[in-house]
Structure formats: structure tokens, C-alpha cells
């Protein structure tokens, strides 16, 4: 019988998992449908001569432990020069600039300076508790022995060890809407708008929705400032693939897995779209949970209740991606040239973000969407022809289930987004060489993200920790013998972190996480 472990999908989590398993001496075969590794962390050409990170474009919480253990620097991962600043564009004047700790310029209300520093300091302290849980399988809620109970006891202890004030504050805020927290903390609209973006990006939530503080904390469990790798996000994946291959893992590209084969309740391998059957002793799916069970495994192999929980898992994406090839660097009003390469936000107030969200609730796109913009060609000129640039923007809200469908409305939406850009960067349109709009529907088709959701499932308390992706699947193993999950649908969730891949590998190797 084969000892081969098949990993479905060469996304960053699949590659991390492959690298760890291969380092432990396992025979690992990674099967990737697309022609390049990386899943949603790829750099690809969208117009002749112009490359962009196709989905994720800023590196937030990539686990430094993984970076160190897999020696990713030796495998080519380097950071571009970036100050990690956030620049909140101002339609009426100078932008607000912060580095995640201090506001550097552009404050409309002086009292916000200290308030921001205090707020971010507190949020980082609280985020530590969430961060602590990352490298571990989530606590079990039923247990046969004290050993099983320990993770839950430890979580309770860590919560208490935050200290009385912080523990209270965390418990008070964890389910709160970000909007209410912003209102009690700050005066300036531009600042509140920028922080509201951090609480809703990638979700189908508005700043007045519950769980947005949780999302904000989740973002800050990584670093307080985003990183830009040289070569774009694809470079992260390439370094992971290089580390996995060096450890002995095989990676097959253009090999789309059509089904995970199950016999007598046990995964026995996969069938490719080509019809080829590959046997395995263990199958690890980096695909999102819905794709894994509804399409690859088949719900009939699960218990009825688990099938229902998976069916009802929330994963409707609302974030589109706009790529623009530019013949020159755009001029954003009031933004000095030195700041254009930083993370630019279009979300002038929390109310603006909330109003952008409203149509999404009813299956319509925002006519004034929020944008997170990166111009990676400033730090990495190889991405565009000399003197030219590429702009990468996450555009929200663009719900996957658009009433009337995306085909009929994609041009109108793209025109809206370009009009918004024009408002902040006059003559923007005249610099455009080419554009590419990826709606959530495109993201699903091209990257296999079910519902076009970047995080393989909404990150809310009911789909968090032990409950992620759904109750009964919270520990990487599944009820199907020899089938494991390793993607962002698992704890600790989305963002290019790699932690789920590492945790899954630990579970497979030891039946526990170290």
C-alpha cells in the first residue's frame, strides 16, 4: 500500500503543509489545478508586460515561525523597501498617515493623536490572546481526559492573565461592531474610516455589524504593518514551493483534482479532471471546506448534520480585485510622492464604509466602494515596463451573488471604481493602459475560492477557533478517515499566514500540534 500523502491545491497553506510533511520524511505529492503555485497568493501577468499580485497583495500575518523553520529567506523571500504606512486618502485635502502605532500626519482632531496610540496599543495587547491560539489546534469542547481539557483551561488562564482590565475590555468588545468602538474612541472621520476598513475588509460585514472588532483583532494578530515581498505575493508562494521541493515534496501543476476518492469511509486517493487516479494513504485538502466536501468528497460520505453545517457555512465574498496598468505614476491629491508606494485607502469616514456596505446586503454593488490600493511596482520595478506602474486594489463591496449577475454589470462596476479613483487622482483615467477586474465570481472560477471568499469562510465568532470551519471539523482531521483539511477555512483562518498548513501537518504527523 502506498505511503503517499496527496495535498490538494498548492496554495500557501498547502505548500506549508507539504514542506513540513516532506521535512518529516513523508512522501508528498501536491496537486495544483492552475499553471503556477500559490493559489490566491500569486503574482501573474494581467496585461503584456504588467504583473500584479492577483488576489492577496499585502502580507500581514505571515507566521515568523514558519519563515524561520522553513528557511524561506534562503528560498528567496525578501521584503521590498516599504515603511508599512497606511495612507487614508482625503477628498478635501491632506491624507491621514499612520504606521499602526502612531498617526504621523493629517489629523483633523488633535485629541485623536493620543487616543490612536492608546487604542492601537490596547488592540495589540488583546490580539495577543488570539495570536496565542494560532499555533495550536483549537480547544475541544467535549473531552475524555484532562489532557483534552487542557487547551480550554489554558485559554481561560490566558484570558485571565491579560489582567482584570484587559480581560473585561476584550470580553466587552469581542462581539461589538467596530463602528461603536470607533465612536467611543475617536473624533476624526478620516481616522475612523481607515480603521473601519481594517475591520471589514474581505468580509460580508459593515462597520455596524457584529464581529467586526474580532476581524480587526484578527488582522492585528499578525504585524501592525503590512509587508510587501519582492516579486509580489507570488514570491511568498515560490519560496514555500522551493522549500517544499527541497525537502522532497513533488508538485504537479495543471493537475486539477476532480474528486477525492472514498472507500469504506476512508480517503484512498484522488481522481484528476483528466481521469487519472492517484492513490494515497492520506489526502489533505487545501481547498475551502465547501469545495472539499460538496464537490470533491461528496456530502453523501458525511453524516447528515455535518453536511448541513457545511452547507450553511457562510462564505459569500464581497471583495473584488481591480488591476490597472499605468503608463505613469498616478498623482493622488495631497499625497507626496514618497507615500504613493504605501497602502492607500479610500474610505473617508466610517459612515462612507457603512453606506458602501448597504447595497451588498441586497445583492447590489457599492456605487461608492471602499478601496485598499497598493502600487507594488514602486518597490519592485520588475512588475511593469520601465517607467510604467501597476495598481492593485481590493474593491469592496462587490457581492458574489449580485442580483442580475456579474456579466451584465461588470463594465458598469469597473467604470464606477475608475470614477472613484479619478476623484482622488485627477487624470487617473488618462494614464490607464489596461485593466482587469476580478469579481468574486471570477475569483471562484480562477482560484477555486468558494463564493469568492478570500478567507475560505467568514471570520466571525460562530466560525472561529473550535467552530471553524464548522463544529465537528475544528481539528484539521475530518470524520472521513485519512482526510484532513489544511486551508484558510480552518483555524486560525484567512490571510496569508500559513498557520493552518503548519497545524494540519503537525496533526497528521503526531496526532497533535507542538
Amino acid at each position: 500500500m502506498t505511503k503517499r500523502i496527496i495535498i490538494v491545491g498548492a496554495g500557501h497553506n498547502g505548500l506549508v503543509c507539504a514542506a513540513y510533511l516532506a521535512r518529516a520524511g513523508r512522501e508528498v505529492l501536491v496537486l495544483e489545478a492552475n499553471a503556477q503555485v500559490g493559489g490566491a497568493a500569486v503574482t501573474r501577468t494581467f496585461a503584456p508586460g504588467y504583473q500584479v499580485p492577483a488576489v492577496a497583495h499585502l502580507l500581514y500575518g505571515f507566521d515568523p515561525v514558519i519563515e524561520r523553520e522553513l528557511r524561506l529567506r534562503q528560498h528567496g523571500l525578501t521584503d521590498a523597501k516599504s515603511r508599512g504606512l497606511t495612507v487614508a486618502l482625503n477628498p478635501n485635502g491632506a491624507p491621514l498617515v499612520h504606521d499602526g502605532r502612531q498617526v504621523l500626519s493629517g489629523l483633523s482632531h488633535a485629541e485623536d493623536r493620543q487616543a490612536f496610540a492608546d487604542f492601537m496599543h490596547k488592540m495589540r495587547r488583546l490580539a495577543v490572546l488570539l495570536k496565542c491560539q494560532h499555533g495550536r489546534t483549537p480547544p475541544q469542547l467535549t473531552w475524555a481526559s484532562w489532557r483534552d481539557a487542557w487547551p480550554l483551561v489554558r485559554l481561560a488562564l490566558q484570558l485571565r492573565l491579560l489582567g482584570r482590565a484587559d480581560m473585561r475590555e476584550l470580553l466587552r468588545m469581542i462581539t461589538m461592531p467596530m463602528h461603536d468602538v470607533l465612536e467611543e474612541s475617536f473624533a476624526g472621520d478620516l481616522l475612523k474610516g481607515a480603521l473601519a476598513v481594517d475591520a471589514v475588509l474581505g468580509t460580508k460585514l459593515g462597520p455596524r455589524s457584529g464581529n467586526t472588532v474580532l476581524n480587526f483583532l484578527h488582522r492585528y494578530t499578525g504585524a501592525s504593518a503590512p509587508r510587501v515581498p519582492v516579486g509580489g505575493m507570488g514570491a511568498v508562494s515560490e519560496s514555500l514551493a522551493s522549500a517544499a521541493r527541497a525537502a522532497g515534496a513533488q508538485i504537479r501543476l495543471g493537475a486539477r483534482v476532480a474528486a477525492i476518492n472514498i472507500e469504506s469511509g476512508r480517503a484512498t486517493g484522488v481522481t484528476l479532471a483528466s481521469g487519472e487516479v492517484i492513490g494515497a494513504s492520506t489526502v489533505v485538502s487545501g481547498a475551502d471546506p465547501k469545495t472539499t466536501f460538496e464537490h470533491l468528497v461528496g456530502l453523501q460520505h458525511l453524516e447528515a448534520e455535518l453536511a448541513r453545517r457545511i452547507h450553511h457555512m457562510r462564505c459569500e465574498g464581497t471583495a473584488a480585485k481591480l488591476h490597472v496598468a499605468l503608463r505613469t505614476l498616478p498623482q493622488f491629491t495631497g499625497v507626496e510622492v514618497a507615500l504613493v508606494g504605501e497602502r492607500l485607502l479610500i474610505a473617508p469616514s466610517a459612515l462612507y464604509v457603512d453606506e458602501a456596505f448597504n447595497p451588498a446586503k441586497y445583492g447590489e454593488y457599492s456605487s461608492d466602494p471602499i478601496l485598499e490600493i497598493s502600487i507594488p511596482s514602486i518597490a519592485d520595478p520588475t512588475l511593469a515596463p520601465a517607467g510604467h506602474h501597476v495598481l492593485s486594489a481590493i474593491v469592496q463591496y462587490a457581492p458574489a451573488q449580485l442580483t442580475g449577475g456579474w456579466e451584465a454589470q461588470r463594465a458598469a462596476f469597473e467604470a464606477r471604481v475608475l470614477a472613484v479613483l479619478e476623484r482622488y487622482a485627477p487624470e487617473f483615467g488618462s494614464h490607464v493602459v489596461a485593466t482587469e477586474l476580478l469579481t468574486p465570481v471570477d475569483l471562484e472560477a480562477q482560484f477555486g475560492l468558494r463564493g469568492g471568499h478570500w478567507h475560505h469562510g467568514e471570520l466571525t465568532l460562530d466560525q472561529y477557533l473550535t467552530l471553524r470551519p464548522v463544529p465537528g471539523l475544528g481539528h484539521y482531521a475530518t470524520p472521513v478517515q485519512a482526510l484532513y483539511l489544511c486551508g484558510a477555512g480552518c483555524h486560525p483562518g484567512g490571510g496569508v499566514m500559513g498557520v493552518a498548513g503548519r497545524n494540519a501537518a503537525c496533526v497528521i504527523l503526531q496526532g497533535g500540534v507542538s
Partner: protein
Amino acid sequence: MRTPRKHFRQVVKYTPFHSRTVAANELNLWHRWRDYSVADAYFDVSLEYTALRNTCAVFDISPMTKHRITGPDALAFMNRLVTRDVAKIKPGRVGYAVWCDEQGQVVDDGTIFHLSPGVYRLCSQERQLDWLHTARLGFDVTVVEETEDVAALSLQGPTSCATLCALGLTGVETLTPFAMRSFVFGGTELMVSRTGFTGDLGYELWIDPDQAEALWDALFEAGTLYGIRPLGTHALDIARIEAGYIQAGVDFLPADHAIRADRTRSPFELDLAWLVDFSKPHFTGRRALLAEQSRGSRYRFVRLDVAGNKPATDAYVYDAKHRVVGAVTSAVWSPMSKASIALASVAMPHGAVGTPLWAEIYYQKELKWNRTNAECTVLAGPSYAPPRRKMTPAPLR
């Protein structure tokens, strides 16, 4: 799409036979079965029971929850739902089955009618629409609740076959147990299955509700010389306990009603291991039942012969060291076996066949409470199982 029925506006429901059951119900005793008004007894519980065991008796089973399952994946769906291999229930056959939740605990029991290739009717005690819609995910099937669309009578007893022959159902005596066949009655289809809840020779008749009253009338006319009587729930209950049949909500708690984990029972714990087939494709509860099989069950379902003549209703069950090891779930004085019998659930490893148990029975005599500890014998099978229940052709008298 069916038109909205606004059925929820009606608190009490009446079966298609109601005009006839009202007329027959001399005692005017009624209770609710899934919102339907049905007779406890019609004229005398003992005499109704006597008719059932000596001639034949008619019980209105229209309130039974009925679902029709169709579609390309109907067999796969049924197999994922229940613990037994539905592929072995051929068209024209009926099978008894249980279905479990993911913990391997019984949600309900019922009968599967394989009406025509790939078309199934599932009959159950409890309402199951929500459960079936949950189980449907991932299958190309249609599940339709058809409880109101089918009227049904159960005709049970030694002269049941003769009565049906007199009704003009030529050849009905060749039906084997758990087989069904279509006849024509009043210009419409009358489906007859050799099934029942009494452990005796008997049939169930399924017809369009419009023909219900005509069927009742014709049946009673055909059965006049065969001692046909209407049968209420009380008399039926005696028969089903004699036959050793379990009832949802009485002998086990449906898993989806349970709040406390130890209140439910697995098929193994209901003496239904014969219904669990691990060699067939995956079914809900399979993993939990495999684990139970290797770990051992918590409870055992037992059929008891209780010493004395007092029904051991709701009695605690003790072992030889006078420790409580379980409780009686159903108990009755069995006229056929001339014994007090009971169904009970006891903790493992108690209750092996032949081992003694004791039932603590409380009973009243002229308002004075008395207590007795009656020794019980664990029986290997049901108290009453006459050979005619399996005979084909069925005896005509």
C-alpha cells in the same frame, strides 16, 4: 408547487375515515396522534383485542407520517438515511428500518415501501420533514410529505386475508410477508401490503382519501361474517407489546427530541443490530456505531416475562443485588401468553437471556397502594408470534 393549505389554522385534524370512526366510537374516547383525533377504544378494549387475535380488526393508521422519495439518487439517499441496506428492498417490497443521528442514536423507526423502481414511501411515527431535508443535501432527490394525500387502514388478525378475499381482492393470499400489491377499488388504486404492528397475520390498505369512506364501508361489509371489528389504540398497544415491537417516544426517545445525551438509544441498544449493515455505503451514524461496536453498548433492550399478574408499568428493574439497573418502558397483561410481560431498557451487562431481574411494581387495591418485587425472566424473543404471520399462502380462516 402545491397550493398553500393553511393547515396550521386547524388545531385538530381528522382522518379521511373520521365520519366512520365517529359512528363506530360508542365510547366516544379519543386522543391525539400527531394532531389527528383517533380512537382510544371503540366499544370495549378487551373485546377489540379479542377480535384482533381471533377474527380481525381495523385500525385507522392515516395519521402515520408518510413521505414520498423520488429522483435519480433515491436509493443512495435512502441508504445514507437508514442503517440497513435499502438495495435489498426490491420494488414491491417493504422493509422495517431505523435511522440515526451522527452520534448513532435512533431518530425514529419506520417502514420503507419500495413502491416502484426508485420510488420510496417512508412511514414513521414522528414527523421527519426537517430531518429528510437535512439528509437530502448532496442528493438529487425530491422529498414530499404525503401524510394527507394517502388514507390508510390496518386490517389485522386471523381472518384478515379471508376478509380481503371477500372484498374481491383476488389472489391477496399469495402476498408474502412484507410484500405489497396493487388492486383496483372503486375505480382507483388500492395498494395492499402485508405489514402491521401486531405480530400477527395482517395487511395495510393504502388508498386515495376520496375513496376512504367507501373502503371502510366495503371492508366492514365484507368482514361481517369474519368477525371484523374496529380497533382502538389501547387494544393495539397490547398486541404490539406482545409482538415485542418498540414505539418511538415510549420505548426510546427520538434522538432529535433529546436534550440529555444518555437518554437516547442506538440500534444496538434497542436489539436492532440486525438492521445495521456496515458493509453497505456510508450512512449517518455509521462511524459512531462502529465505535460503539468496538467499545460496547451502554444499554440492552429486553423482553421480560414478569412473575404474577400485575403489569409492571413504569417499574424500576433491579439485579440480584437489589441495585437499580434499568426501567420498564412498556408493560401489559398478555391475554395470549397468560402472563405479565414487559419491554425494558437495562444497563449493560445486565439482562442477558435467562438471567434473573426483578421489577418493583406498585399497584392499587381499593385505593391502597401495594408493592411487590416480581422476578422477571429475560425472553429470547417476542411473547406472541403465531406461525400464520409468516405463512404463504395466508390462511383464510
